[in-house]
């Protein structure tokens, strides 16, 4: 049973990872600092998933990036664009609606039981 639950939970995470990532990019973050923050907030994600996702969001103009070459090793910082902020607000609205529906469905089912 645990295997099945784990795989479904993984799908749930996959469906919400974009919102989770965007929620932390109102300020500039570089890849690894974002990874650490998400892990600390209880949303574990691996590097191999995060970095390509950041690249994809950048290609969709949701994020913008720049290299900081002042430190010993250059780091690529990401932040939301204005368009990205609008998309994020819209996603939060939709996600809230979805959460409400799920809660109604699950609470309604329990009541019937």
């Amino acid at each position: 049973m645990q295997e099945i639950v784990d795989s479904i939970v993984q799908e749930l995470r996959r469906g919400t990872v974009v919102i989770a990532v965007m929620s932390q990019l109102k300020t500039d973050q570089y890849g690894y600092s974002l990874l650490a923050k998400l892990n600390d907030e209880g949303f574990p994600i691996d590097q191999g998933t995060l970095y390509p996702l950041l690249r994809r969001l950048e290609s969709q103009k949701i994020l913008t990036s720049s290299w900081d070459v002042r430190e010993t090793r250059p780091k690529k910082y990401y932040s939301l664009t204005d368009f990205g902020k609008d998309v994020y607000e819209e996603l939060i609205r939709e996600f809230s609606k979805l959460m409400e529906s799920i809660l109604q469905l699950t609470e309604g089912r329990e009541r019937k039981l």
Partner: protein
Amino acid sequence: MNMIENYCDAVVRFLKHKEEIHKEVEEMIYSMLEEKYGEKTQYSDEEIADVLKKLGNPNILALKYTNLPNHIVGEKYIYHFYYCYIFLLMIIVVGNLFGFVFGTIEEPHDVIAYFAKFFASCFTGALAGFGALALVFMGIEASKKDIRELGNYNPMSLKKVKKPNPNSGKYKIADSVLGIVFTVFFMLLLNLSPEIIAIYTKSAVIPVLNLEYLREVIWLLNLIYLTGIGIHIFKLASREKTIGKILGFYVIDLLSCVLATIVVANSRFFNPEFLTFLRQADSVNELFIKYGDVLIQRVMMAGIGLAVLGYTIELIVSMTQLLLRREKR
């Protein structure tokens, strides 16, 4: 350091935006090293291997950057599938080319039909090959365990990826393959059935070329064709453009134009009956009267002149691209 470089090279090998992704992956690796082992100027091989193992197989990471659909063949074997298919395509083209050559030698008058068959066979072979190969790989995938096997890769045994010379461009495979195919076609046409190149009227078939003269000079034309084929094969074998190659091929192309001029400049090149047929049109006859019997030769040489111009433009463009690429570096 080499392990990190090899890993990053392996990730970006088939990706677009290689430089940018290479830097990102490198940044990712160093961030992981700093987090686990502290900020250092140098990390040991064991530390690097530990982090690379956690990062996973570079092929899987590369696929995440591509968003490739992998419904037919999964992540584990998708690159093997592409390699095998390209190899299969080469076998199909070469095999059909041999069929075309030997078929034409047997039945010279059907050279055009064999040529059309060659293209049709290549197309159907490519489709059938794709389907068969996909079935084979689906079977391999179904019989093997899941993809987590790919996690058992050893970062220490990552091979150094051969990187192309950043200062050079590449000759396109399709250009060379098409060049070989069409050169072979024209070579066979002129050697085995030159009479096909004719004007077909209701009452007669008038060959364009003087077949007797053609027989005398065919060795020279074959030399030009074989040189062209040799150049295309060389371009396939060594695709990187260099200044030496560009200049060398230009000189050879010019020499071929000189040889071609020797052939077509001769007043015996065209069949006299063909010239008589042309002069039946008043406008053409007027041109012959105005410019003399060498009119056709002048037209042919103008054509060769255009070819030389084309080669020269190609030389200038290729050299400029190469030099600009070097400057960018």
